[in-house]
């Protein structure tokens, strides 16, 4: 076990100047009021041992989240360091030095008993080896920090079990189990096994598919008339040879060029042969001379048919417009005569109207004159003779004679003009029809010319283009009929070759499927597959071995836990009853079982009646229980954890006199196993410690802390 010998602090938290503490007695007391630097002294020990692990959120202590290591009154270049002297169970002395560099960096040095100085990674590894504990272990087994100790009884079962494991020095078992589980080997093995099974199923499916495809292809072979003995490489090659010969003869007969055709020596070569033969057959079908002629005749027939349709349509259009034009033509001579007559009539009527209008104007002016004021209406303005009723006479002349006459002439004139307009409209329509007629006639002439050009002959007015076209069509159809038979024969020959090729293709397909099936069948016998099987089993063995080791860890951990629980149970019971003095609890049963789900230790605290304790305890009792467990474990005989000291920071907070007295009695017992470093501002506890603790004490008195100098500490 590691014990403390000396502590040197410089610039750390409350400290400014160098301060030294000597741990030369089993009891080290740090007495003083709040804020005088006691806690900084205890913190300096843990920081020297664990560095940044005890700072910030990862420390697991809320008040440490914004912790600052350097004293705020020091300049940025000041030295901040803590030095500890430790001694192991063989009285070997180690010096640990930690200097602060920045918020995230510090410098660690370890000086070994032989004077060798280690730095960096070597120093870290040596310190880890010496302490054999994490900071969290330190918090639950050495440094009685209220927040952490309370977790032992109030946190979730997992946290509580972990904390008690740490108190019992069983962290290694727990850490190793956690490390093994983090590797998730079981999940990997399951994944591997699932992949293997899935692949095996894929092989089975592929085999079934190949077999079914083969069955289908063999069925097709039988349908095409292939015999059993033909469905072979030899059979396929023979068919290919036959196809080659047939194609050569065909090309020769038709006078066509043929590409080089290589049958090959094995069925795999036939794919290439088939590609070339297919291409050649396709070319023969389109390039055969008869086919070429046939295509030309089809084209000719199409052209003549189109011309015939065109001629019939233009002829129809011309006939239609011609009928209308003939009717109009007959009417036009008569209407031209009427136009001339109308022009004379209009001329006469316009003359009559002009005369009537001239007389009318004289009468109108005479009326206007006579209607003026001051005019003698009986005197004629022309001859100045007296005419009785002159104005009445003039008005009668106007209304009864000229007005009527003018109206009549105008009506007649309008009737003539209307008729003239009607005839004008008729002639417009006549001209339109005439133009259509001429245009249709021109189109007919053009089509006749086109027909002549297409048939290579002249079409005269006496010719009937329709009949001529019909004859030409008949002639083409006759030629086509003759050619069709020749082409059909040749296409039939090519179809026969194609059919042979189809047979060959079916055989090649069957041979290919057979080979694929063989490959699939061989996979399960392949060295790769067998090796995969071996690897799968290897992984299963590894996982099983790991499970067995986990089981061994669990058993060893449980066995050790059980021994220690049995050993500490009495002390915990004793301490709790001494400190808490709870009327309802006369005995605490502390037991451990194995959690079957997690294979971890599961701890329980029950009262004398076997009832769980935590529901009936108040906060003070829970604190007492936690402290009892801490002290009970700390005072266990034998090295359950590597530290030979416990640190207690104000353990009597809000406790009564009885509690304090009992606590001191318990501490006296703990001192049989561990050095105790106790910090307290509580005068009553201080007096009790000084008067009742039976071991030798070193007392440090902390008085007012002056910011510029740091804590004032005196050793007594």
């Amino acid at each position: 076990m590691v014990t403390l010998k000396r502590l040197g602090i410089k610039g750390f938290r409350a400290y400014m100047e160098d301060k030294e503490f000597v741990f030369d007695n089993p009891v080290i007391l740090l007495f003083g009021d709040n804020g005088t630097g006691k806690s900084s002294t205890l913190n300096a020990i843990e920081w020297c041992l664990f560095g940044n692990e005890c700072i910030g959120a990862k420390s697991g202590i809320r008040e440490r989240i914004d912790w600052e290591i350097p004293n705020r009154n020091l300049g940025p270049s000041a030295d901040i360091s803590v030095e500890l002297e430790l001694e192991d169970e063989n009285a070997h002395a180690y010096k640990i030095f930690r200097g602060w560099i920045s918020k995230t960096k510090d410098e660690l040095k370890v000086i070994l008993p032989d004077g060798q100085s280690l730095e960096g990674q070597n120093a870290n590894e040596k310190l880890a080896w010496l302490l054999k504990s994490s900071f969290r272990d330190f918090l639950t087994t050495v440094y009685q920090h209220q927040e952490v100790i309370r977790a032992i009884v109030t946190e979730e079962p997992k946290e509580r079990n972990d904390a008690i494991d740490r108190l019992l020095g069983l962290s290694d078992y727990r850490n190793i189990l956690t490390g093994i589980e983090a590797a998730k080997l079981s999940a990997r093995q399951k994944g591997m096994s699932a992949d293997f099974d899935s692949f095996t199923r894929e092989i089975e499916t592929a085999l079934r598919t190949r077999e079914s495809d083969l069955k289908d292809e063999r069925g097709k072979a039988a349908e095409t008339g292939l015999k059993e003995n033909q469905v072979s490489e030899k059979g396929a090659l023979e068919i290919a040879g036959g196809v080659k010969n047939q194609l050569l003869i065909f090309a020769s007969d038709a006078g066509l060029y043929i590409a080089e055709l290589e049958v090959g020596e094995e069925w795999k070569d036939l794919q290439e042969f088939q590609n070339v033969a297919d291409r050649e057959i396709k070319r023969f079908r389109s390039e055969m001379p008869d086919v070429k002629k046939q295509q030309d005749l089809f084209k000719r027939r199409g052209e003549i048919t189109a011309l015939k349709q065109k001629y019939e349509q233009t002829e129809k259009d011309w006939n239609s417009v011609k009928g209308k034009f003939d009717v109009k033509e007959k009417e036009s001579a008569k209407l031209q005569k009427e136009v001339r007559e109308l022009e004379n009539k209009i001329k006469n009527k316009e003359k009559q109207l002009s005369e009537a209008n001239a007389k009318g104007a004289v009468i109108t002016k005479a009326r206007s004159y006579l209607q003026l004021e001051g005019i003698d209406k009986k005197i004629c303005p022309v001859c100045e003779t007296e005419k009785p009723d002159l104005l009445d006479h003039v008005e009668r002349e106007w209304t009864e004679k000229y007005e009527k006459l003018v109206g009549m002439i105008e009506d007649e004139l309008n009737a003539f003009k209307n008729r003239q307009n009607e005839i004008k409209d008729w002639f417009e329509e006549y001209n339109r029809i005439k133009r259509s007629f001429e245009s249709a006639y021109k189109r007919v002439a053009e089509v006749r010319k086109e027909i002549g050009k297409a048939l290579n002959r002249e079409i005269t007015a006496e010719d009937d283009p329709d009949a001529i076209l019909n004859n030409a069509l008949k002639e083409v159809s006759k030629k086509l009929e003759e050619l069709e038979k020749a082409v059909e024969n040749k296409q039939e020959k090519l179809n026969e070759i194609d059919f042979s090729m189809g047979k060959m293709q079916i055989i090649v397909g069957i041979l290919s499927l057979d080979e694929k099936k063989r490959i699939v069948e061989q996979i399960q016998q392949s060295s790769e597959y067998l090796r995969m099987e071996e690897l799968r089993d290897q992984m299963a063995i590894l996982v099983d071995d790991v499970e067995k080791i986990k089981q061994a860890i669990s058993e060893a951990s449980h066995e050790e836990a059980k021994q220690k629980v049995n050993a500490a149970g009495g002390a915990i019971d004793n301490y709790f009853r001494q400190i808490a003095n709870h009327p309802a609890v006369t005995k605490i049963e502390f037991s451990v079982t194995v959690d079957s789900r997690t294979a971890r230790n599961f701890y329980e605290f029950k009262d004398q009646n076997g009832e769980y304790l935590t529901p009936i305890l108040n906060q003070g009792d829970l604190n007492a229980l936690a402290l009892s467990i801490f002290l009970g474990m700390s005072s266990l005989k034998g090295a359950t954890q590597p530290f030979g000291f416990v640190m207690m920071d104000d353990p009597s907070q809000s406790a009564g006199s009885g509690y304090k007295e009992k606590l001191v009695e318990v501490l006296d017992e703990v001192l049989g196993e561990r050095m105790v470093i106790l910090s307290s501002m509580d005068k009553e506890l201080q007096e009790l410690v000084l008067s009742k603790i039976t071991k030798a004490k070193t007392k440090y008195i902390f008085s007012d802390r002056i910011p510029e100098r740091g804590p004032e500490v005196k050793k007594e």
Partner: protein
Amino acid sequence: MNYSEAVKGKIPGDGNELDRRKDLWSKIDGAYEQGGEDAIKSVLIKSSDSVTEEFDKLLKQLREKL
């Protein structure tokens, strides 16, 4: 008896099987002593990686054949 010996004494099995398990335990224990929980995780993953990587490679090869 330290934890390492305690666990070793509890490992079940006979003959080669036991030797193999004890050997694995030594690896786990050694890794823990050297680098804690993370080192155990690394050593076990490394042990299984050699198996799974070869397995995956062979599986890929055979799938291509299929």
